[in-house]
């Protein structure tokens, strides 16, 4: 009888231990891959596609092809877990492309109010705010597509003067970083925490024709420049620019975008040779071949990270 009780209690104990069933995250992938994805917009007249790639550079899917629509994709950014937003020039607008959920595969107008000039890159917040480069202005839209400000950031805001802006990046602490491709080639940083007011935080010269910009998890900013085909690192306020990649146009030629990969490396969109290259933050190439080399990727206009949990998914 004692053996019977001991056996029963032992079995019950170990089975209770084994009955835990939990839901959680996915393992952040290895070998350079991750659950995060890469968004790319192609601006070639023959490939006006917005595309999705995996972190290891493998093709995931075409999100939408604008070749039969009016509009040249100039920027792309995640909007929520099911859709992305795309800035298009001629006809000027921001469109929303659904790739998951019941509307997957469809595209709709998100906003066009105030858009009439040269449209370039855009960025988003997780709350659904959209910031778009337009001529020498920055337009802002709320999550419903309603325009905020007229425009939200004018040409001159304190010591920040927009001059042919191209790249745009929103940090987690609501600092908007904009590159001035024209004028004196500057990196402008604004405080955009208040939808009704903008403050210029800094304006620093950098390289020659800066374009794409990101804030890296190491706290520094990284900027690609088209005039000298280089990659620069600056302090978080845009000061102390240092080149980490010297000119080699066989690799980086007319760069338009830059992102941080899950492993901390940088991925740089080289629009003139239609490639994306991976390098570490000291400027050493990760591989001797491009991270992305794909017939669909032509004249890259923008590249962005699409975090796996963006918009609260997973």
């Amino acid at each position, binding site marked *: 009888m004692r053996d019977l009780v001991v056996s029963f209690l032992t079995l019950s104990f170990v089975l209770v231990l084994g009955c835990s069933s939990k839901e959680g995250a996915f393992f952040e*992938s290895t070998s350079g891959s991750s659950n995060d994805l890469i968004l790319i917009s192609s601006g070639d007249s023959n490939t006006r596609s917005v595309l999705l790639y995996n972190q290891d550079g493998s093709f995931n899917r075409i999100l939408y092809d604008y070749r039969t629509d009016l509009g040249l994709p100039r920027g792309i950014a995640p909007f929520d877990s099911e859709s992305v937003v795309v800035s298009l020039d001629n006809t000027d607008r921001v469109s929303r492309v659904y790739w998951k959920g019941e509307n997957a595969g469809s595209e709709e107008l998100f906003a066009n109010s105030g858009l009439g000039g040269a449209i370039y890159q855009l960025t988003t917040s997780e709350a659904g705010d959209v910031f778009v480069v337009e001529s020498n202005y920055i337009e802002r839209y709320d999550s419903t597509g309603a325009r905020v400000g007229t425009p939200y950031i004018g040409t001159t805001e304190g010591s920040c003067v927009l001059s042919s802006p191209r790249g745009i990046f929103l940090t987690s602490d609501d600092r908007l970083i904009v590159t001035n491709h024209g004028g004196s080639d500057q990196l402008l940083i604004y405080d955009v925490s208040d939808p009704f007011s903008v403050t210029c935080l800094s304006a620093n010269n950098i390289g020659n024709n800066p374009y794409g910009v990101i804030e890296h998890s190491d706290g520094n900013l990284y900027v690609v420049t088209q005039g000298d085909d280089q990659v620069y690192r600056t302090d978080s306020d845009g000061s102390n620019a240092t080149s980490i990649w010297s000119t080699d146009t066989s690799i980086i030629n007319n760069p338009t975008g830059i992102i941080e990969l899950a492993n901390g490396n940088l991925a740089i969109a080289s629009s003139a040779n239609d490639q994306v290259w991976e390098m570490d933050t000291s400027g050493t190439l990760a591989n001797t071949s491009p991270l992305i080399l794909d017939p669909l990727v032509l004249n890259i206009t923008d590249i962005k990270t699409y975090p796996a949990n963006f918009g609260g998914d997973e």
Partner: protein
Amino acid sequence: MKSLKNMLLLHSFLFIAAIYALPFEAQAFGVSFEAAIGYPNFSLTNTDGSKAFYDGISVQGAAYIPAWKFQKTGYLGFGLGLDYYDLNNTANNAEQVEKSNHLGPFIGVHVKLSRFFFGYNYNIRKTRIYWVGDFTNDYTEFEYNGGTLYAGMEWTLSKKLDVGITYTQSTNQYPSSVTHLSDDIEFSGSTIWLTIKLGTGQSVGKIFDTVFIN
């Protein structure tokens, strides 16, 4: 819910097996061979602090070699074998699936005291992890190692046959050198095993004699 149902079925089966096994005598001393099927529950913590949980099925084959007998049915010895895990992420859904296979040998010390036993194994495993879905279609392979503490009890069905249940607690490391992540990832968890063990009643030397000389 499905897991709970499976566990209840296993519980019922083991309980009946335990009652059935109790009247039999203890197993004879000697080298023994074991086959086991298990229900593993593992987890890991990503570098961003998020946790991933896994369950699935596991199988194991092992040999136990007594080295020092200190009771009628007790001994200190060595164990070695091979285990295989087939794991599914518990967050799997229609949009994204993560699965993994883990296979590798282990070796360790094994202590048996009457119908109870415990021990420790050092294991090396090769894993293949793959993701299928909207976010990632990819796989990766690498090796990792770790250790497993275990304890359990067994019941004698016949002179040469035991059945038992074992609880194992494993702690392993996915090295950053192979995952390319900023830190090592601890991959740990427990497994409940249902075991069946065949006792030979013979020493290693006699088994070698039987196989290679006679």
